[in-house]
């Protein structure tokens, strides 16, 4: 099954090369042509969620890549998506919480944006229904700021015309960046290669960690599936001690008590690349995260019943960290390429 997937990927790569060559010869063809995502080993291609009204095309992705790194579309022209979703930090933020366009700290730590093509609800609280919805309502920008700052850029005008048949619009910006984001797929990690039959891909410590992950430590209760996330919302106790203006997480969206101070289960792929951790960035290292769960989280009235003391000894905690480090995968170099921005 794995071998077959790999062979298909190689076949798709050849097809894409042909398509890219054709697109270079005829730019109009490239603009309209659907882009076939290369899904790395370990991810489930059938689970991809690409909106019907925003299909992937090569030129739209390239436009989205430029916009992702372009600070000019924020109100103050000081922050871009990449300011908080830093490629070299696992597409997350090395800071505990992000800093907004006015230089003020935000409420939460920036979650990674890898493998977002497999789910829809966006943000730690799932407050937006899609990446397009999230991007259209970002507080650090506005339709007016986008048109004023990017509208005069001739290269953007030409790209928007080719991709959307319009001038520079906020809707187009959201669709282009969402498309770029969906190409950031991380897989083919040591864990994936181990699952595919390469017994040497995981160290003995990581193999012991895998057994703990699925067994005694019960991490897989929530961090399950090929993307290591149930896409659920759980109260682990993080941030619940705050009396003044506490972050109520998913409750702010649903008003259901079961969602009080509950936050989305993040993917664990590439997790070793992107500390600090948790929705408030309060835990600096994976060792701290494992120790936190070993203690059973933080007691509070809405603590998830699925969080309990684990009783892991130090060696077991180290094995779990070794396993988590083995989830560091590969993102296709062309997907992670930083572009030059049009002037």
């Amino acid at each position, binding site marked *: 099954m794995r071998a077959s997937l790999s062979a298909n990927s190689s076949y798709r790569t050849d097809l894409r090369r042909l398509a890219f060559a054709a697109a270079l010869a005829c730019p109009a063809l490239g603009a309209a042509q659907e882009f076939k995502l290369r899904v790395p080993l370990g991810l489930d291609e059938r689970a991809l969620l690409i909106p019907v009204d925003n299909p992937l095309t090569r030129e739209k992705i390239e436009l989205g890549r430029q916009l992702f790194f372009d600070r000019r579309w924020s109100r103050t022209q000081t922050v871009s998506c990449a300011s908080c979703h830093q490629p070299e930090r696992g597409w997350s933020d090395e800071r505990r919480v992000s800093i907004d366009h006015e230089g003020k700290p935000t409420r939460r730590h920036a979650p990674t944006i890898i493998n977002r093509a497999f*789910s829809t*609800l966006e943000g730690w609280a*799932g407050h937006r229904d899609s990446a397009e919805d999230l991007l259209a309502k970002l507080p650090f920008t506005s339709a007016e700021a986008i048109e004023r700052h990017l509208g005069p850029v001739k290269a953007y005008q030409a790209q928007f015309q080719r991709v959307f048949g319009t001038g520079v619009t906020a809707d187009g910006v959201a669709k282009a960046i969402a498309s770029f984001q969906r190409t950031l797929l991380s897989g083919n990690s040591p864990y994936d290669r181990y699952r595919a039959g390469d017994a040497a891909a995981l160290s003995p410590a990581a193999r012991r960690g895998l057994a703990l992950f699925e067994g005694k430590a019960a991490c897989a*209760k*929530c961090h*399950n599936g090929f993307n290591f996330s*149930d*896409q*659920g*919302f*759980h109260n682990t106790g993080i941030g619940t001690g705050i009396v003044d203006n506490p972050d109520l997480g*998913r409750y702010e969206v*649903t008003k*259901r*008590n*079961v*969602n009080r101070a*509950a936050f989305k289960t993040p993917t664990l792929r590439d997790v070793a690349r992107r500390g600090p951790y948790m929705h408030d960035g309060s835990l600096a290292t994976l060792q701290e995260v494992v120790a936190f769960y070993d203690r059973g989280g933080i007691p509070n009235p809405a603590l*998830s*019943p*699925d969080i309990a003391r684990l009783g892991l000894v130090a060696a077991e905690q180290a094995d779990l960290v070794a396993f988590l480090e083995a989830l560091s995968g590969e993102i296709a170099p062309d997907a992670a390429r930083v572009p030059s921005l049009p002037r």
Partner: protein
Amino acid sequence: MRANRPLRMALLLAALAALTGLALAEEFRVVQRNQEFSVRDLQVRVGDRVTFTNGDSVTHNLYSETKGMEFEIELQPPGRSDTITFARPGTVEVRCAIHSAMKLRVDVKP
């Protein structure tokens, strides 16, 4: 004696109606497993009962925000069953507030 006859008839009719009602109401079973409902769509009639059993090792929640058919089982531990009677016609969306991808559509026929 004569005075009691209408009362006896009324009681008999009530008992028959109750029995008939019980016979007509159907029981359905849905299991939550692997963080999915065992069916995505379910057709029932008004008065039918659906028993939800948590077949997972994690806690679930059950709720409906469908107007006139709102309910919530806030926490359903592994192994527990809860029964919902669908008392009104319409389409009811049953979801889990913990696992947002879990959805079940129940079509309640008159």
